[in-house]
């Protein structure tokens, strides 16, 4: 049995080799900046908290126009009663956004001649959610084939739950009642009607809105139980001339969630980029996302963050506390495991807490031609962490006269160039333009041989 024995021996040693070569946990850098949803024009944000078939879905609402013109039509799997609909604070979407946004981190090289205490830099941008396009409305009426299953008022919204027999009747009803649905929407309503979905229709109750004291429309949160785990994006594509951005935060007790009918791809992450990007991080991320989007043929969903919500490393925002998690829709919350003392997350140290809430941040840029189907999701037990993390390594450019200092400086041009190449590859920016912005290194006192050695190493 020599074949078998030798095979098993090789397999075992390979196996052990792989497991032993897992990287040790490393400090993930000081947080600098984040790329949140305000980068994108008209990015919709949706939070889905789901455990088994129970779902709480929160739709952020940053409608910029007149409140009287606002209307929302969403296919939902079941009839919703008043108790199942809530209005929540807009801040909660900002918190989810800030917590999960791709982040820029920095490290500082020590003086190669003598160790110096690390400088710390904390630079935060407070995000705000971006606008989403909404249709307009007028007065109400009645239409045929349409049943008003429920009708109630929640916060500043008047809500109707409809079921329809056919799309023509539904379209008439909506138009008669002042919901201006775009041309072509009628054809899109039919598949949802045939799948026995109901329609959640909301508009603003102006009196309540004026007395509410809020200036912006708040997110709507709905709770239902259904085996369907999907987002009906097709309905939103009717009149879209350009690509629309959608950020979905999926909160689950099990682990990572993914899209099942389109490929889910991780955005490029854990790359070293030049120092000057610090001032241009938003532009960098937008370009990088556009490049990845085109490279993947514009038909994938991008994973930007997947992490246990009890901790972060580095943190772009404080982890959400239990109260905030409940606001976001988490209904299965237990006591967090481990150390309950709040720690100073800004120091970038790994906190002790872990909870049974896992967040997945998916960024989908969709167009009609590449996304014919509504998004379908599944939750998995995948507990692997992932984050969009871009690393700046600040070189030590002060005087270094020792040998180690000379060698260090000799190695810098090559390192800068590599970072520049990475940047160019990720964003599509011209390498010549990038090179102009790189710092210059004084190599006058470094011997030609040291320079050569550093280059070929």
């Amino acid at each position, binding site marked *: *049995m020599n*074949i*078998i024995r030798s*095979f*098993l021996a090789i*397999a*075992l040693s*390979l*196996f052990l080799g*792989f*497991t032993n070569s897992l990287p040790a946990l490393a400090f993930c850098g000081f947080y600098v900046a984040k790329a949140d949803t305000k980068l994108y024009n008209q990015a919709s944000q949706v939070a889905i908290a789901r455990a088994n078939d129970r779902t709480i879905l929160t739709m952020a609402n940053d409608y910029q126009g007149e409140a009287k013109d606002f209307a929302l039509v969403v296919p939902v799997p079941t009839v919703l009663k008043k108790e199942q609909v809530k209005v929540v604070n807009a801040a909660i979407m900002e918190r989810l956004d800030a917590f999960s946004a791709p982040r820029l981190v920095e490290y500082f090289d020590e003086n190669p001649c003598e160790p110096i205490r690390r400088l710390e830099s904390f630079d935060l941008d407070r995000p705000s959610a971006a606008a989403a396009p909404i249709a307009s409305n007028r007065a109400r009426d009645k239409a045929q084939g349409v049943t008003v299953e429920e009708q109630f008022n929640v916060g500043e919204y008047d809500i109707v739950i409809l079921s329809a027999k056919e799309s023509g009747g539904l379209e008439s009803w909506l138009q008669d009642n002042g919901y201006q649905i775009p041309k072509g929407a009628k*054809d899109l309503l*039919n*598949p949802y009607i*045939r*799948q026995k979905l109901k329609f959640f229709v909301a508009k603003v109750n102006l009196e309540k809105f004026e007395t509410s004291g809020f200036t912006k429309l708040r997110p709507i949160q709905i709770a239902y139980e259904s*085996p*369907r*785990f999907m987002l009906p994006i097709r309905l939103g594509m009717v009149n879209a001339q350009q690509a629309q951005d959608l950020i979905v935060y999926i909160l689950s007790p099990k*682990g990572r969630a*993914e*899209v*099942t*009918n*389109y*490929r*889910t*791809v*991780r955005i490029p992450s854990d790359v070293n980029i030049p120092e000057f990007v610090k001032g241009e991080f938003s532009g960098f991320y937008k370009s990088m996302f556009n490049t990845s989007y085109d490279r993947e*043929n514009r*038909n*994938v969903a991008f994973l930007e963050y997947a992490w246990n919500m009890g901790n972060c490393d580095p943190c772009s925002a404080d982890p959400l506390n239990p109260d905030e998690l409940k606001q976001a829709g988490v209904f299965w919350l237990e006591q967090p495991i481990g150390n309950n003392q709040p720690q100073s997350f800004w120091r970038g140290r790994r906190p002790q807490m872990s909870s049974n809430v896992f967040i997945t941040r998916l960024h989908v840029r969709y167009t009609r031609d590449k996304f*014919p*189907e509504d998004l*379908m999701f*599944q939750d*998995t*037990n*995948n*507990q*692997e962490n992932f984050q969009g993390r871009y690393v700046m390594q600040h070189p030590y450019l002060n005087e270094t006269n020792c040998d180690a200092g000379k060698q260090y400086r000799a190695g810098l041009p090559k390192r800068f160039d590599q970072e520049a190449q990475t940047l160019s590859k990720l964003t599509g920016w011209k390498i010549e333009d990038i090179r102009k912005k790189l710092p210059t290194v004084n190599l006058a006192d470094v011997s030609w041989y040291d320079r050569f050695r550093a280059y070929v190493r």
Partner: protein
Amino acid sequence: MRTPIDARLYQIGFLASFLLLGFITRDWQLHPEVVLTAIVAALTTQYLCLKISKCIKISKPLLVPVTKGDLGGSTRDLTELTKSDFYSPMITALGLSVLLRVDHSWAMAFAATIAILSKFLLQFNQKHIFNPANFGIICAILFTHEAWVSPGQWGESMWYVVMFLICGGLVLRKVGRWDTTIAFLSFYFAMEAVRNVYLGWTWDVWSHRMMSGSLIMFSFFMITDPRTIPNAKPARIIWTFTIALITFILRNYFFMTTAVFFALFLAAPLTILLDWIFKDDRFDWFNLSSATTPEIKSV
């Protein structure tokens, strides 16, 4: 006389290249240690089961490879294990690695072990009932709460479909079971097309639904396992229709992402009934009937 190549080696080659390709290009997040676990577990279980069945000395050994070398066909007992005894478990292990995702390696070990065990323990009339990889996937999903299938991992790149077609076709022509693939895809595509028309979607929705890599992978590599599908041709047609129907129902009315695997699992016992109704010769890897197939000698 030239030694002909066992058709299963082609399948191993293709599965291994899909795995490698997926690993490199498609962002599947495959882990080498999980793949190795599958291979080691499958091969070890096969080895142990073969040894045990030899020790028990059953008059007709559980897995009977038939030789057709220059000495003519004859059943051989398992006094010696050879390389070819490990081709099928290798296919199972690679199939599991491609299709099943786990959070920890032990779940993959469980899937691979139970897949191979099912071949030896769950038999009827000396034919194992369940496709081993399929059984492993179902058990891992049901019993470990650690395993899942990612239907979206492949994307809809036409190139992959073509690749599958070529590779699958090559293997299938070698084993003469093209009919199950064509039958399954035809039935299933037709059902989905009818549903598409009923719902009122445009045709690109239908074609997008059909471009599921898992579906194609399943129809070329899993539903064609000649050792677990009905022996007779009319039986296979009925059987594939049943699987297509169950898949359609599970996917569209129960919203299961693993519909196609559960469909095969549920339809497997039907094989017994169909084999009893439509009698035909059982398939063996060493006795391929296609004229274009090279003769195979036990290695």
